[in-house]
């Protein structure tokens, strides 16, 4: 079913590029009353992908929420992307999603057909993940937004936090970077159609396969790369700890053509927010081009998993991932922290 409505024209910011900057978010949350519970295994104090609450010796509940304005024009595809993005946080914790609630903002410029298509995209993606939508909440808003609150489950001893990367671990990224740049270029009418279709298809893909494969290996830490970009999410993994990440820029998978588009200044506002957040703790070696660095800061929507795996398991894990996710690559490793930098880009 096709609609003539172009959803991206109804919103100023697209996808995860609309996220409040990490630095701003941290400031907003500072000083709020903090209460905890002995059963809370993961809270928001480590900026992790989801909260985790112990139910029993063998079961913990994983809870997360994600929603954003349209990043593509087609309502069904937008619903798919928003759902995949929300479900990803449960996979990043090593969990399995089971229940979801719609979070929906309906613009008066949307037809009923468009709203239904958006929801249908979300429902289909949730069912593909093996979960169900059990309700939700919707409000009227000037700009449309869609996403999900997702509940999943994980064994308490198998939670993959984002802050437990070990010195010697190898970093693997399961999807290429660049969707922020590509969707921005598409808005300008400057993105190759095949590249745009590839970016859209990638955003609709669940991180379920990556999760199902990685949990069989010695992985202690994982996150998904979304609105804060690769460097922003890597910083969240490293911050406050005694380790640092070395990222090999030439190994980071990027959608073909995105370096050229970045060099043309087709960069979303979210890239600059991410750069402000992470550049103070990121050292970039000479020889890494400005355009490549831009893409490392590029906000991703429904991006891949960033996995920190024991170096002994790195090649076997990568091989299995690449059987299903051919763009997965080893992109770096973890070293003892040096100076003030948590990330070194080489």
């Amino acid at each position, binding site marked *: 079913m096709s609609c003539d409505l172009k959803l991206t024209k109804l919103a*100023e*910011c697209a996808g995860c590029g609309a996220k409040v900057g990490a630095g701003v978010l941290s400031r907003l949350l500072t000083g709020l009353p903090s209460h905890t519970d002995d059963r809370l295994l993961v809270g928001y104090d480590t900026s992790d992908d989801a909260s985790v609450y112990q139910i029993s010796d063998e079961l913990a509940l994983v809870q997360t929420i994600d929603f954003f304005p349209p990043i593509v024009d087609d309502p069904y595809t937008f619903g798919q992307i928003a759902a995949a993005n929300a479900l990803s946080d449960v996979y990043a914790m090593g969990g399995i999603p089971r229940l979801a609630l719609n979070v929906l903002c309906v613009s008066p410029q949307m037809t009923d057909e468009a709203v239904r298509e958006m929801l249908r995209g979300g429902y289909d993606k949730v069912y593909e993940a093996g979960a169900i939508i059990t309700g939700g909440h919707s409000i009227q808003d000037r700009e449309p937004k869609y996403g999900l609150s997702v509940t999943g489950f994980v064994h308490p001893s198998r939670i993959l936090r984002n802050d437990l990367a070990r010195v010697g671990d190898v970093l693997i990224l399961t999807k290429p970077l660049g969707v922020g740049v590509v969707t*921005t*270029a598409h*808005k*300008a*009418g*400057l993105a190759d159609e095949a590249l745009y279709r590839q970016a859209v298809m990638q955003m609709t893909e669940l991180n379920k396969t990556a999760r199902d494969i990685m949990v069989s290996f010695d992985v202690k830490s994982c996150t998904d790369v979304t609105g804060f970009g690769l460097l922003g999410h890597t910083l969240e993994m490293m911050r406050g700890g005694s380790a640092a990440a070395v990222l090999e820029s030439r190994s980071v998978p990027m959608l073909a053509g995105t370096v050229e588009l*970045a*060099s*043309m*200044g*087709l*960069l*979303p*506002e979210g*890239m*600059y927010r991410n750069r402000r957040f992470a550049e103070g703790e990121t050292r970039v070696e000479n020889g890494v081009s*400005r*355009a490549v660095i831009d893409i490392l800061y590029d906000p991703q929507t429904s991006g891949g998993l960033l996995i920190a795996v024991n170096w002994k398991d790195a090649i076997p894990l990568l091989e299995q991932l690449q059987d299903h996710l051919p763009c997965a690559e080893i992109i770096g490793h973890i070293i003892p922290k040096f100076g003030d930098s948590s990330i070194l880009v080489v």
Partner: protein
Amino acid sequence: MTKQIDARGRSCPEPVMMVQREYDEADTLSILAGSPSAVENITRYCEHRGGTVTVTQQGDVYTMTVTKPCCNCSE
């Protein structure tokens, strides 16, 4: 010929699109931008096209002057 472009208040990628539309026909461009990110995006575009960019700032307004490489200079 100097092309004047007012990109203030425009969201990405509109500032770059505005410059792209005028770039080829202009000898120089004088651009008003309203945010550091617009300045950076426009600068990247113009430098990618071989131009030289200078920027001055007064309050929240950035005035950019873009000079294109001379194609007809004699040796």
